């Protein structure tokens, strides 16, 4: 009788082991892979839909700050203002017949409480950053994923050493907890991806060309867009090496 009970116990343990193994493998294989989401592509000329623009010597600069929650959700899938980022869609049109201009993101600044440069905050530094010379990773995401791995290991361990009778009760709770954590990571990846894919890149703009993209400025949720806020930009004439300065108020 004792042998029979022992066999049953061993058999039951094997089932638990198998369940936990399957759980760990399933979680590690599928756990935090984000679902592809397609955000609205921002097409069309910025200068046609915004009043915030200035023209100097055949060069036109137009800006469109994204402050409304709906607009931000549609474009990036998240309210970036609450995360301390103000995305401004910037467009440059070169209508000069012969001159080329060098447009650099670091030469854009916003005056909030103090003058802050666009280079203070970039997708490269928030949340994606260059961790060390040969290692380009999304630190926030990796950190989140590592935390999740620790959580998963702890939960698998708890399941492993729990009495066999408690396993079916614990399993659903653990799955729910892990899924919510995975969702957090998925959102983080997708938002950072949509931020960096639309980032304004440095380039020379030749006669007849235009160039646009988002520049991200630091912006606390307490800040408001009013007439005192201005975007300042200096653009360099490639031939003469002289700078042209723009200053556009964000509210007219």
């Amino acid at each position, binding site marked *: 009788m004792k042998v029979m009970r022992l066999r049953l116990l061993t058999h039951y343990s094997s089932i638990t082991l198998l369940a936990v193994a399957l759980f760990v493998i399933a979680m590690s294989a599928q756990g935090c892979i984000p679902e592809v989401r397609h955000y609205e592509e921002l097409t069309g000329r910025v200068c046609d839909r915004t009043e915030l623009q200035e023209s100097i010597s055949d060069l036109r600069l137009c800006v469109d700050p994204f402050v409304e929650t709906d607009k931000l959700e549609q474009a990036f899938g998240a309210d970036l203002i609450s995360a301390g980022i103000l995305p401004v869609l910037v467009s440059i049109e070169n209508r000069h017949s012969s001159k080329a201009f060098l447009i650099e993101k670091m030469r854009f600044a916003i005056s909030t409480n103090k003058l802050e440069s666009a280079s203070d905050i970039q997708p490269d530094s928030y949340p994606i950053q260059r961790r060390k010379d040969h290692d*380009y*990773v999304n630190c926030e995401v990796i950190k989140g994923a590592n935390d999740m791995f620790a959580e998963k290991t702890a939960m698998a361990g708890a399941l492993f050493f729990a009495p066999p009778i408690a396993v079916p009760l614990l399993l659903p709770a653990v799955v729910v907890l892990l899924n919510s954590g995975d969702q957090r990571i998925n959102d983080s990846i997708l938002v950072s991806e949509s931020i960096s894919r639309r980032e304004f890149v440095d*380039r020379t703009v030749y006669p007849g060309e235009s160039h646009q993209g988002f520049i991200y400025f630091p912006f606390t949720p307490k800040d408001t867009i009013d007439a005192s806020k201005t975007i300042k930009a200096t653009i360099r004439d490639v031939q003469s090496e002289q700078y042209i300065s723009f200053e556009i108020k964000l509210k007219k």
Partner: protein
Amino acid sequence: MAIIRMRISIARLLFLVFLAAMTSACTIHANIPNNYDVTYPKDTEKIPLRIGLCLDSSIDNIDLPSTPRGGLVVHMNDSLTRNAELMVKRMSNIVIVDKRNVTNMPCDLKSVDVIITPVVTSMRLHLLQENFNQVLDFMISIKWSVVDSGGKTLYVNTFIGQHSCEPYRPLFGGKEMAKECVQRAVEGHFRKAYEGIMTTKWWSQAIK
């Protein structure tokens, strides 16, 4: 009875250690080869200047883990530096390459008219889920700058190479698919960069 219980506990412990080892050790390492050639447009006019190509270690031997879990690591080796060299050599008849083993150190390129410098601005490898398939998505963005011998910037542009591969199955040809995905994105980047740099005729400023 106590011995049997202890054996079960030891078996459980060993199994847990085995599972932990399996989940952490199952990382696929994909080495990107450098022996593939990018097809560029033929019969393009050459740039009538002596070009110096400045390469530093920031674009050499990059190891990129996939997000979110890092189950895949791509080793770029010298695929970027070699392709940069091949691309610039197609642009001009006189090209001098200065390859540095350190970062942020200006190149010592004398007797050239212009210096071209590529800098990797962004690079990502994502594992995404679309319906029931896993999608491997690789993106590389490199900023190309051209300055003349006096330090005056003549041309700047950033080119993006991106490629998605699906269905990605880590255990069934995942390594080969990762290699192909990265190679296609890198090829796409160099084709765009070549066309972008060659079509703008920025060198007319340097000749004046």
